[in-house]
C-alpha cells in the first residue's frame, strides 16, 4: 500500500495529534481533523507551525493535532497577546490559534479586538458553542436569546456576533462555518492559513453535552435545518493541487492571497462582494433576523500590512539574532557616555 504524501513529501499522519479527551461526538474534534487536513494539504511544514490556545474545551484541542509543532496552551482569554509576542520573534512561522466563545467573547474580548486591530498574522479558530463546557454548562456571551439550558433558565441577554464585530474592526479575513461542514470549513481554513494577516473563522461547533436542545441556535438539529451557505470556497494552492478540485457550477471569483495562491469563491448569494464590509454586515444582520446562520467568507481585505510588517523588523527572525546583532558595540556606549558628560 502506498502512503499518500503531500507537496513536501509528508504523510498526513505527520500532522496528527494525540487522542482527544473531549466528549464523544464533540464538534471540536471535527475541527481538529479539518486543521490536520488543511495543514497537510497546504503543504505546511509542521515544524514551522505554532499552535496557540487559551483556556476551555476548545483550547485543549491543540494537544489533538499537529504533535510535531510547538504550542502554547496559555491563560483564559489572553492567548492573542502571547501569540503577538511569539509572532514578533518568529515572523515567518504560521500561527494556528484555537479559542472558544468564553475566551473570545468574554474574558478575552479585548485581546481579540486588539489583535485584529494590529492585523496580527494568525489564524484565529473560534470554536463557538454558546456555552461554558468545562465549568459544566453556563451561558457564554454568544448564546442566543431564548436559548434554554438543559436545566434552569432561558438566556435573555443579547449575544455578541464576533464576525460582525470583526468586520467593523477592519479584520482582514472574516469567515463563518459549521463544524459539520467539512468541505466548506477545510476550504476556509486553507484560505485563512494562506492569508497574511488576521483571519477569524467563527465555527459553530455544537456542544453535545450542554447546549444541544433543539431550541438552541447552536444545536445540531437547529443548525442543520437553518444553515445557509453564503459561499462555497474552494482553495487552489499555487503548487500542484493535492486533489482534483471540484469546480462548482454557477458564478465564481478568484481572489489572490499573499502567498500567490488563489482562493475561488462560488457565490451562492450572487450579490455578495467579500470586499464590501457593508454587504457582509447586511448579510449577517439579514440572516440573524431570519434566525439563520450565514456561512462562508464574509469579508476579505488583503491590502493591509500585518503587525510584524508594521514593525519593520530585520529579515532574520528576532529569536534567531546573533549576539552582535542584539548588543550594540562598546564604542556606541562610549559615545553615549561622552554625550552625557557634555564632551
Amino acid at each position, binding site marked *: 500500500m502506498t502512503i499518500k504524501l503531500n507537496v513536501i513529501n509528508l504523510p498526513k499522519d505527520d500532522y496528527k495529534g494525540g487522542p482527544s479527551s473531549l466528549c464523544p461526538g464533540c464538534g471540536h474534534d471535527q475541527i481538529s481533523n479539518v486543521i490536520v487536513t488543511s495543514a497537510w494539504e497546504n503543504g505546511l511544514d509542521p515544524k514551522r507551525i505554532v499552535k496557540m490556545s487559551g483556556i476551555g474545551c476548545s483550547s485543549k484541542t491543540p494537544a489533538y493535532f499537529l504533535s510535531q509543532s510547538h504550542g502554547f496552551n496559555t491563560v483564559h482569554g489572553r492567548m492573542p497577546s502571547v501569540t503577538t*509576542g511569539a509572532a514578533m520573534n518568529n515572523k515567518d512561522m504560521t500561527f494556528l490559534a484555537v479559542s472558544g466563545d468564553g475566551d473570545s467573547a468574554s474574558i478575552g474580548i479585548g485581546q481579540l479586538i486588539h489583535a485584529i486591530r494590529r492585523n496580527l498574522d494568525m489564524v484565529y479558530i473560534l470554536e463557538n458553542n454558546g456555552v461554558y463546557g468545562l465549568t459544566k454548562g453556563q451561558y457564554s456571551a454568544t448564546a442566543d436569546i431564548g436559548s434554554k439550558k438543559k436545566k434552569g433558565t432561558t438566556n435573555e441577554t443579547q449575544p455578541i456576533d464576533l464576525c460582525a464585530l470583526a468586520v467593523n474592526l477592519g479584520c482582514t479575513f472574516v469567515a463563518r462555518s459549521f463544524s459539520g461542514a467539512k468541505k466548506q470549513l477545510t476550504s476556509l481554513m486553507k484560505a485563512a492559513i494562506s492569508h497574511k494577516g488576521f483571519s477569524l473563522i467563527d465555527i459553530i461547533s455544537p456542544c453535545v453535552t450542554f447546549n444541544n436542545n433543539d431550541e438552541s441556535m447552536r444545536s445540531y438539529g437547529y443548525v442543520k435545518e437553518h444553515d445557509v451557505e453564503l459561499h462555497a470556497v474552494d482553495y487552489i494552492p499555487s503548487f500542484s493541487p493535492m486533489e482534483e478540485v471540484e469546480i462548482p457550477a454557477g458564478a465564481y471569483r478568484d481572489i489572490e492571497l499573499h502567498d500567490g495562491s488563489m482562493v475561488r469563491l462560488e457565490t451562492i448569494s450572487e450579490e455578495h462582494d467579500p470586499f464590501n464590509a457593508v454587504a457582509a454586515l447586511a448579510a449577517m444582520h439579514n440572516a440573524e433576523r431570519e434566525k439563520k446562520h450565514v456561512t462562508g467568507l464574509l469579508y476579505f481585505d488583503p491590502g493591509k500590512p500585518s503587525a510584524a510588517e508594521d514593525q519593520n523588523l530585520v529579515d532574520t527572525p528576532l529569536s534567531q539574532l546573533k549576539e552582535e546583532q542584539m548588543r550594540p558595540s562598546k564604542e556606541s556606549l562610549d559615545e553615549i557616555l561622552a554625550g552625557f558628560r557634555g564632551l
Partner: protein
Amino acid sequence: MDNIINDFTLNIATANGTGSQSANLILLQTISDMGVNVSGKNLFPSNISGLPTWYIIRASDAGYQAPGNRTHIQVLMNKATWEADIEACEPGTVIIYNTDVKLPVERDDCLVLPVPMTKMARGIHPKLARMIANIIYVGVLAHLLNLDDDAILSALNKQFKGKQKAIELNSTALALGRDFAAENFGEERGPYRVEAREIEEGSFMIEGNEAIALGAIYGGITTLAWYPITPSSSVAEGIIDWLPKLRHDEDGKTTCAVIQAEDELSAVGMIIGTGFAGGRGMTATSGPGISLMSEFIGLAYFAEIPCVVWDVNRTGPSTGLPTRTQQGDLSMLYEASHGDTQFPVLIPGNMEECFEFSWRAFDIAERLQTLVFGFSDLDLGMNKWKCSGFTYPDTPMDRGKVLHTQKEIDAIENHGRYRDVDGDGICYRTLPGSGIDPILYRGTGKDEDGTYSEKPEIYHANMERLKRKIDNSRTWLPQPILREEVELEIGIIYYGSMENMIQEIDDILESTGMKVSQCRIRSLPLSPIAEKFVRDHETTIILEVNRDGQMYGILRKELPIELVPRVHSCAFSDGMPPRAIIYAKKIMDVLRKVGATTEVLA
C-alpha cells in the same frame, strides 16, 4: 554670620504645567557642573496643569542625596500652597517670593525677599510671562548663591538645546533676575553660597529609568511590550528613543519590536510569547500593573518562560499616590501570582546598577527560565542622580539551556522538557521552529516530558524542583554590599533607593556615638551573605520605605529560626522621598525598645 557653603536645601513651590521644571533643572545642572554634590527631587502631582509641585534641591559637601531635614531657602510661586508653604518655614529661612501673586508674607523671623517676577517677565515677553517668571527666580538665586555665570549659561543652553529663541529669552530673564537681586539684596542675601569644587571626572546626572532603558538595549531586548503608567513610562519611552541609534540597521530595520499594549495583562502576555519563541522580552510597569499581570506571571513561573518585568514602584495601595515613591511592592513581586511561586528580584540602588541589572536581567531570566523582576521606585526612576558612567557588559550573553539540534538532544539521556538531568533544577528547552522535541507548553500540571498530568507525586516533585531552581540562584545573583564596623553590634539592612541616604543616617547615628554596619541587599532570594551579616551582628535593623516591613517579613521567613529574634523592622512611608532624620529617629526608637541603646537623638 558666617556663610554656609554647599550645605542647604532649597524648596521651590510652583504650580504644575507652568514650565518651572526647566528652571529647576537649570539650577540643578549648574550646581552639579560646579562640581558640588547635589540632588533634585521633583514632587509632582497626578495632573497635567494647575496642581501644586515642589522641587527640592539639596547641595551637600558631605555627599548627602536625600532632601535635608529642613528647608533653608524657600521660593514661593504658587498661590494655592502659599500659606502652608510659609507656615512650614523654620525661623531663619530665606524666603524669595513673587510679589505679583499679591499675597502677603508676614514672617519677621525669616529673611523675606520680594521680587516682582511676573512683571519683570512681562517686560521681556508678555505672552510667555508665566513661564519666564521661573527663570527670574533662577537669576535671583544665581546672585544669592553665587552661582558661576558660565556654568549657569551652559546649563541653560543644555536645557533649551537648539532652540535659539528660548535661549535668548531665558538668558535675558536670567540677567534681569540677577541684576534685580544684586541691586535690591546687596547686603541682606542670606548665608547660603555655592562654592565650586573639583569636578569629578566623567560623572553626569541621569534618571534611573533612562539607565534601565539603555541597559535593556545593551541586554539584547528583542521585544518591548508596555502600557503607560507613572512612574515607569519613561523606561519604555527611553528604549523607544534610543532604538533608532542603537538597534536599527542602515535601512531603518529594527532588531527590537515595540508594542504599546492594550493593558498590562497584554503587555506581559506579549513578553511571555517572546520568551517562548526564544527572544528577549521586557515590560516596565508599576504596582497596579503587576497586580493586573499576576495571573500571567504565574504562567511564566510554572511553564518556565524567561522574560523581564521592571516595577518602578509608586505609592500604593490601589491608585494610591501615583506620583510619589515607595518600596511597597517588594513582597508582592517576590511571591507574585496564586499558588506557590518565587521570583528573582533585582534591586538596584544607584544609576550604575540600574544599567547593569537591566542588561543582566535577561541573562538571569534565560539561565533560570523564569520571569525576573527588576525593582526600582519613583525616586530612583524619575529623579536625576549622579552617575559615574555605565560599564559595558563584561560577559557574553547567557542564553541558558537551549537545545538547537537533534544531536544535542540525543546526547542527553532520556531528555524531557521538565526533566532535571543536571541536578540544578534547570531543564533543557527547545524553541518553536527548531523542529526538535516539540512541546505544547501549558499552565496545567504536567510530567517531566510536558504531558498533562494530575498525579500527586509528579506535581509535588515538579514544585520541589522549581523551588530548588530558584534557591540555587541565591549565591550568584547580585550579592549584598557590606560596610562593616569592627564592633559588629548593630547592623542595618536596607535596599534600593535608600542607598542615597544611608550615609546621612550613618552620620546622624554616629553623632550619638553609635557605630553601625550596613548591608545593602541587591537581589532576592536572600543571599547567604545577608544571613551571615545578621549572624555576625547582635542586633540588625531592616530599614525600608513601606508600612509593614516587607523585607523584614521575607527575612523572618528565610532566616534560620535562631536568628529571627535578632532582626527588627524599621519601616516608614509617607510617599515623600525618604529623609534621613526621620529614619534615624525611628532606628533609635527601635534600638531603645529592644535595649540596644539608651541614647536619644537631639
